[in-house]
C-alpha cells in the first residue's frame, strides 16, 4: 500500500480519516496539487468506497450544506456522479443545466456566478466548454468551486478516479507505464491525467495520429507514439479517449473506419500490452470507433469500475473541500 495510508493509521486522524487538512478552497485542476495532496485525496477516496457501498455507515459530513451542480455542457455521468456523491454525504444538491448561445456564454457565466453566490451555496460544481471558465467563476464567488471539466483544460476528478482505479488494480502508481490513446489535443481528461501521472512518477505515453497531438506534447509526457502497435508494447494501463464525432468528418481524421483501423483498441492490439494490462475509458464510449465492444466488455476492462470510483473520489473531494476534511 502507499505511504500515507500507513501513516494515517498511526497519526492523529481527523474525523475524515486523513492526517491532512486539505488546504485549498477550490479544486480547479490537478496542476494545483502536489504529490502528497494527490496521495491524500486518493487515500480519502479509498476510504469512501466501502462507505459508499453501505449507506448506513456514511457520516453525513455535508449535512445542511448546499451543493450546486452548474453544467454549461451536457453531461450525464459526471453530473449524476457528483449528485450522488453529494447526496450520500447529506448535502442538498441542486442541478442546473445552462444551455447557452455561444455569443452570450461569458456574460451568462459572470451573471450566473453573482446570482448563485447570493444564494450562499457551500460548493459549486462547474462544467463549461471554455478553458479557464471555471477558474474565472471561482474568482467571483465566496464558496468552494470544483472543476467538472473546462474546455480542453482540466477535469481533475476524472484523473483522480482513474488513478484510484489503477492503484486498486496495480497496488501502486510509481513506475507503471500508462498509455493514453486518442484525441489528446482536445482532451481535458488527457491533460489532467498526464499531470497527475507525471506527479506520481508514472511513465506516460500518448498514442495518436499527429493531427490529434497538441504542440509541445513531448514536453509533458515521457513518450509520444503515432503507431499504436508500437505504443502499446509493455504498457500496464491502456487509457482510451472518446473521439468526438465532429473530428471524424475529415478535418483531423478522414473517417471513423480509418481511425478504427489504425487507432481502435481491439483484442489483437491489446495483446501487445502486458498480459495483465487493464483497459480504461472515461466514457461515453464510441464502440467500434475507438474501442472494440469485445474489449470494452472484456475481462481486462475496468470501465464500469471507473464509474464507481468516480462517486468515491467525488465524495472525498466534497468532504475535503467543505466537509470534515476541510481546513476550518
Amino acid at each position, binding site marked *: 500500500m502507499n505511504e500515507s495510508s500507513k501513516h494515517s493509521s498511526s497519526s492523529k486522524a481527523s474525523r475524515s480519516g486523513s492526517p491532512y487538512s486539505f488546504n485549498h478552497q477550490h479544486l480547479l485542476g490537478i496542476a494545483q496539487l502536489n504529490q502528497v495532496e494527490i496521495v491524500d485525496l486518493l487515500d480519502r477516496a479509498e476510504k469512501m468506497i466501502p462507505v459508499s457501498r453501505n449507506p448506513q455507515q456514511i457520516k453525513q459530513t455535508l449535512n445542511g450544506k448546499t451543493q450546486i451542480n452548474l453544467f454549461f455542457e451536457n453531461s450525464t455521468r459526471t453530473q449524476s456522479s457528483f449528485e450522488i456523491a453529494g447526496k450520500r454525504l447529506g448535502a442538498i444538491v441542486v442541478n442546473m443545466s445552462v444551455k447557452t448561445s455561444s455569443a452570450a*456564454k461569458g456574460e451568462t457565466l459572470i451573471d450566473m456566478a453573482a446570482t448563485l453566490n447570493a444564494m450562499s451555496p457551500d460548493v459549486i460544481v462547474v462544467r463549461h466548454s*471554455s478553458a*479557464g471558465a471555471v477558474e*474565472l467563476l471561482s474568482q467571483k464567488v465566496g464558496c468552494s468551486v470544483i472543476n467538472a471539466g473546462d474546455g*480542453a483544460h482540466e477535469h481533475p476528478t476524472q484523473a483522480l478516479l482513474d488513478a484510484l482505479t489503477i492503484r486498486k488494480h496495480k497496488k501502486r502508481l510509481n513506475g507503471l507505464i500508462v498509455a493514453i490513446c486518442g484525441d489528446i489535443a482536445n482532451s481535458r481528461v488527457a491533460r489532467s491525467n498526464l499531470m497527475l501521472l507525471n506527479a506520481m512518477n508514472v511513465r506516460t505515453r500518448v498514442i495518436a495520429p499527429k493531427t490529434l497531438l497538441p504542440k509541445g506534447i513531448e*514536453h509533458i509526457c515521457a513518450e509520444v507514439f503515432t503507431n499504436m502497435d508500437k505504443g502499446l508494447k509493455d504498457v500496464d494501463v491502456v487509457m482510451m479517449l472518446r473521439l468526438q464525432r465532429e473530428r471524424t468528418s475529415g478535418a483531423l481524421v478522414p473517417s471513423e473506419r480509418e481511425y478504427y483501423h489504425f487507432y481502435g483498441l481491439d483484442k489483437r492490439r491489446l495483446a501487445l500490452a502486458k498480459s495483465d494490462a487493464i483497459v480504461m475509458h472515461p466514457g461515453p464510449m464510441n464502440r467500434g470507433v475507438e474501442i472494440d465492444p469485445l474489449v470494452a466488455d472484456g475481462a481486462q476492462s475496468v470501465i464500469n469500475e471507473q464509474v464507481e470510483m468516480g462517486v468515491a473520489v467525488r465524495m472525498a473531494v466534497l468532504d475535503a473541500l467543505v466537509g470534515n476534511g476541510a481546513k476550518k
Partner: protein
Amino acid sequence: MSNYLLIKNARIIDPASNKDEIGAILVKKSKIVDIISGQAPNAPQDTTIIDAKGLVLAPGLIDTRVFTGEPGHEFRETLSSASKAAAAGGVTSFVTMPDTSPIIDDAALVDFIIRRAKATAKVNILPSAAMTKGLNGRDISEYGLLKQAGAVCFSDGRKSVSSTATLKSAFTYAKNFNMPIINHLLDEGLGANGDVHAGLMATGLGLKGIPYEAETIPLERDLQLAALTKVRYHGAQISCANSVKIIERHKKTNKNISCGVSINNLSLNENYVGSYRTFFKLSPPLRSEDDRQALIAGLNSGAIDIIHSDHDPQDVEGKRRPFAEAANGAIGLEPLLSAALRLYHSEQVDLMTILRAMTINPAKLLKLKSGRLKIGAKADMILIDLNYPFVVKEQEIISRSHNSVFERAKMTGKVIKTFVKGKEIFTLGES
C-alpha cells in the same frame, strides 16, 4: 499668448536628419522657424522660454494603428478621449482604423472623422479607410474618392483580407493612386479560431493555438503580390522570427514594402498570459521570448520599420469572459514611448532607432510632412525625460477603457510635454 516659443538647452533628436545634439528650437505660432545648435541666442521680446536642460526634444510620435470607438462604440473610446491619451503618450498624430460602426468605407465617413477630430481632438487624426467595402474581404472600396476625402491608407483593420484575387486587385488599384495598403496578417483557417500562440503554454492551458504559419503564409503571399503590383505595402504587424526573415529577404529586391510591430509584441512574451489573463489576449498573439528577441533584432536591422501601439480599447464586459470568448486587444497610446524606452535602457536598441520607428518612418509610409524637426515644419514636438521613473497605475489611465497590458509595470522614461502645432497640449502632472 506669446508669439514665440523657445525651447533651449534640449538634446534635440531628429531621426529624419540623424541629428542628435544640444540646441534650441524657436517656434512662431504653429511652425518651427529656427533650429539652433548649442547655446540659444537672445529670444524676441514676446517669447515663452522653456529650459529643457536634461530633456530630449524629439518630433511628436506618429502611431499608425489606433482603434477608437467613434463612431458607434463611444463607450470604449472617442476620438477626443483617445487624443488625450495620445497627448499624454507623446503621440501627436495617429491613424484611426476603419472597423467602427459604421465602417469607414465611404468618402463621407472619412470626412466625418476629419471634422469630428478637428472639433474634439487635441492631436492630428489621420483616418484610414476600409480596403474592402464593409470589410467584406471581397470588393475593393473607392480608393480615389477616399483619398480625396483625406484617407491616408487602406486597411481592413483587425480583419485580414485573405482572398488572393481581391488582394491583387486592391494592390493594383491602390498603386493607381500611390496609396499604401496595410494588411493584418492572419490566415483565417489556420489561426482565426485561435486564442494564444501555439506552443506548450497553449497546450497546457487547453487553449487553441495560433501557429506561426497563420502569419507567415499570408505575409509571403502579400509580399509576392506586392512585388508583382509595385504597390506600397505595409505588413500591419508581425510577431515572430520567421516573419522577420521573410521581410528581410523581400526587402532586398523590393523597396516599396515595410512592416510594423506592436509595442506589445516588442515588450512581452506568451508567459504573460499566465492563468488565463484576458488582458494579454492579443492579435497577433504574444509569442515566445525567442520571437520577441528576433523582433528586436529586426528593428535594429531595419527589417521592421514602424513601432505602433495597436491601441485597442475594450470595455470590462469584453474582457471579463472565459479566455476563448474574450475580446482581443490592449490600450497602448499612453505607454507606447515609455515601453519602447525599456529597449533603450536595456541597451538593446538605440534611441535614434526607437524614435525613427515612431516618427519619420511612419511619416514616410503615409507621406506626411510631420515626424521631423525642420524649419518650416509644423511644431509637433515632445519633451522626454529619459530617466523619469514611474509605475503604471490603473487609476491614472486617461483612455476611457482600462485594458492595459502594462498595468503595475515599472517604467523609466516619460513624455514631459507634448506640443501640437506649437501649442502645449500636455504637461506631465497637469490634467
